[in-house]
């Protein structure tokens, strides 16, 4: 943020200079601003690219005041500006970003990703933009672990699929320790602080940044010679984007902008003064409220669709047609018989790979939740209808009323009354299930909480606030539902 504001200022200043000093000024503009209009990459100019990234890889990507920032973010945005294209950043999580890239949900990934031979098989990499390396850290008050030799019989933690994990695995037999993999840095640091693991292996810039942010750890070894970070596109896709990245990177390096970005994040950031709980509350509330809004939106949409599905398939289940009953049974057994998390991954990553049609995260999330909740709703509707005494239907039919009329006037009013408590229950379940959509990068309440503690390392307090928000909203909605139930189902 600071970077681009400073750049705009310099552009404005040089432009003024240019007006004032004529010819000399013109050359100054050209030198300090080798931008879009000077040497645009024809293939990328004016294009918008969707770039996937990690959620929690400070200082490469993290949120500050709700905005994505970090080395990767400044780099990709400045390169985009330099090369005349636009980027839309999607903060997905590391694993998720790579899967999104493979399924062409995003055009490129910049996520502090090491260039490895394995990854080169599925992705095309840019020139390296950062030389990293793995470092080990332990809890601040730990005096026993000072090197790899002290790790015998202990458990260490590393980020799943990262270079740190690869390195830890490569030496675990030699030193006799066990490696546990977790998904993000903040969780790993908490794991070490909680004593579940004695040490963490993480990329040194990330570790250094975290330590400077008072994450409660200290580094005890030198950085291992590591690989380099690169920007990636899907194999054979978007070659023009890759070329533009390389050209832009070279230009930023030659004009000094690259170094100034690195300095901003790595040169001894001042330790931040920890604000109190209420400081955290007021700082995080805007982002959390935005997340809560999305949680409620996804819940609302999903419940409505699930209700339609539940009523439809519920009627199928009690129908006389064997085909319809079978159809409903298959639907229910698929969605009750697989984990919601797997369904979410499937709809967001798997489906686009099968159809070639990208899907946005809200659609995928609502699709997942509504199909899942719909299966449970189907059973609620079936159970409700079947729990009405068959004599009621017989009485209706013997009066000459048709099936539909009997359902509508006789069975359903009684069934709805029986179903309502289960509906309210399912509604609450679905609201809580939205938190699982954090894994596909849907920016709901839990996701926002993760973003916040990823940057400030105050996991416990942040999660407490998140939990309290869920608790308040769910209990308010439950009270409201019960009140409506009492009023309409006397």
């Amino acid at each position, binding site marked *: 943020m600071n970077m681009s504001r400073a750049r705009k200022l310099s552009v404005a200043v040089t432009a003024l200079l240019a007006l004032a000093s004529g010819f000399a000024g013109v050359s100054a503009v050209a030198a300090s601003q080798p931008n879009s209009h000077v040497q645009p990459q024809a293939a990328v100019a004016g294009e918008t690219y969707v770039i996937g990234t990690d959620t929690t890889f400070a200082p490469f990507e993290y949120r500050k005041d709700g905005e994505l920032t970090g080395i990767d973010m400044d780099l990709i945005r400045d390169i985009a500006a330099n090369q005349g294209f636009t980027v839309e950043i999607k903060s997905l999580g590391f694993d998720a970003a790579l899967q999104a890239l493979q399924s062409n949900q995003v055009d490129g990934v910049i996520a502090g990703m090491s260039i490895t031979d394995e990854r080169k098989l599925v992705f095309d990499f840019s020139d390296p933009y950062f030389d990293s390396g793995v470092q080990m850290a332990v809890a601040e008050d730990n005096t026993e672990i000072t090197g790899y030799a002290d790790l015998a019989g202990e458990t260490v933690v590393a980020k799943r699929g990262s270079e740190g994990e690869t390195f830890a695995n490569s030496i675990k037999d030699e030193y006799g320790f066990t490696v546990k993999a977790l998904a993000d840095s903040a969780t790993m640091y908490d794991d070490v602080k909680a004593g579940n693991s004695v040490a963490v292996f993480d990329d040194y810039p990330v570790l250094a940044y975290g330590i400077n942010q008072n994450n409660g750890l200290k580094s005890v070894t030198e950085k291992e010679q590591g690989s380099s970070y690169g920007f990636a596109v899907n194999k054979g896709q978007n070659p023009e984007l890759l070329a533009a990245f390389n050209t832009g990177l070279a230009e930023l390096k030659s004009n000094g902008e690259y170094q100034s970005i690195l300095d901003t994040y790595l040169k001894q950031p001042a330790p931040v003064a920890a604000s109190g709980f209420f400081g955290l509350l007021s700082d995080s509330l805007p982002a959390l409220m935005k997340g809560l809004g999305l949680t409620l939106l996804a819940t609302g949409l999903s419940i409505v669709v699930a209700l339609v599905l539940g009523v439809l398939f519920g009627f199928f289940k009690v129908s006389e047609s064997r085909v319809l009953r079978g159809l409903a049974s298959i639907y229910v057994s698929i969605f009750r018989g697989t984990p919601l998390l797997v369904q979410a991954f499937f709809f967001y990553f798997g489906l686009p790979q099968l159809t070639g049609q990208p899907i946005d995260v809200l659609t995928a999330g609502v699709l997942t939740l509504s199909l899942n909740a719909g299966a449970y709703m189907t059973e609620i509707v079936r159970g409700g209808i079947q729990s009405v005494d068959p004599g*009621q239907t*017989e*009485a209706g039919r*013997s*009066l*000459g*009323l048709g099936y539909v009329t009997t359902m509508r006037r006789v069975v359903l009013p*009684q069934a709805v009354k029986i179903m309502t408590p289960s509906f309210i229950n399912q509604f609450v379940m679905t609201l809580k299930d939205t938190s699982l959509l954090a894994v596909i990068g849907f920016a709901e309440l839990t996701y926002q909480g993760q973003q916040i503690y990823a940057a400030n390392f105050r996991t416990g307090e942040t999660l407490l606030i998140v939990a309290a928000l869920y608790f308040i909203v769910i209990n308010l909605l439950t009270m409201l539902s019960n009140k409506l139930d009492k009023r309409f189902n006397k």
Partner: protein
Amino acid sequence: MSTSSNNTASVGSKISVRGLRKSFGSNEVLKGLDVEITEGEVVCVIGPSGSGKSTFLRCLNKLDELSAGTVIVDGFNLGDKTVDLNEVRQHIGMVFQHFNLFPHMTVLQNIMLAPVELKKESKVDARATALTLLDRVGLADKADARPGQLSGGQKQRVAIARSLAVNPDIMLFDEATSALDPEMVGEVLQVIRDLAAEGMTMVVVTHEMGFAREVADRVIFMADGVIVEEGTPAELFGNPQQERTQDFLAKVL
């Protein structure tokens, strides 16, 4: 009122059953019934539990599907797929052992539902009819009560009023007094007796032998899915021909 049984289709035949069979899975409950019922006739069906009496009754308005045979009611062949069952059922009122009143409606709404939904009457007319019917079964003061507030006998009288609301010309009673406390049986039987006196065609499955003897034009004794014997009450109760009839009557009388 006709007083003798009649096994051949007659001009006045209201219900004609031929070779009726009904199975639930591999269990054959009705094993070939032939019955003719003429207009205005009151037929009581008696027999031990599990003899198929209720199933026979439920086949007359096709609440149960027929497995074989034909049932012709008011000239409608129930086996014919093109026959509008809802139309046929409006000619046949049915009263159940467990009343099956709609618990979410008032007494009046229970009675008005079918006439209004079937667009036979306007709401205003249906209401007037319902009140008349309630008066007829002695419950005019219960119009706005919910079924849950009524005694068993009152519920059954409301159920009778409800089935009369679509103006049927046949009434089926399926053990209408079996679920009632003894002191309430009388009030329900009285309503049925009044209907009989008005000339309604009725098939009454019952355990009330005294009632059958008094009201029926004809009594059918069923056992094991077949009609064992039938005749006037005097014949069947006074001089049963079959051993099984004699055994049954010896137990219940």
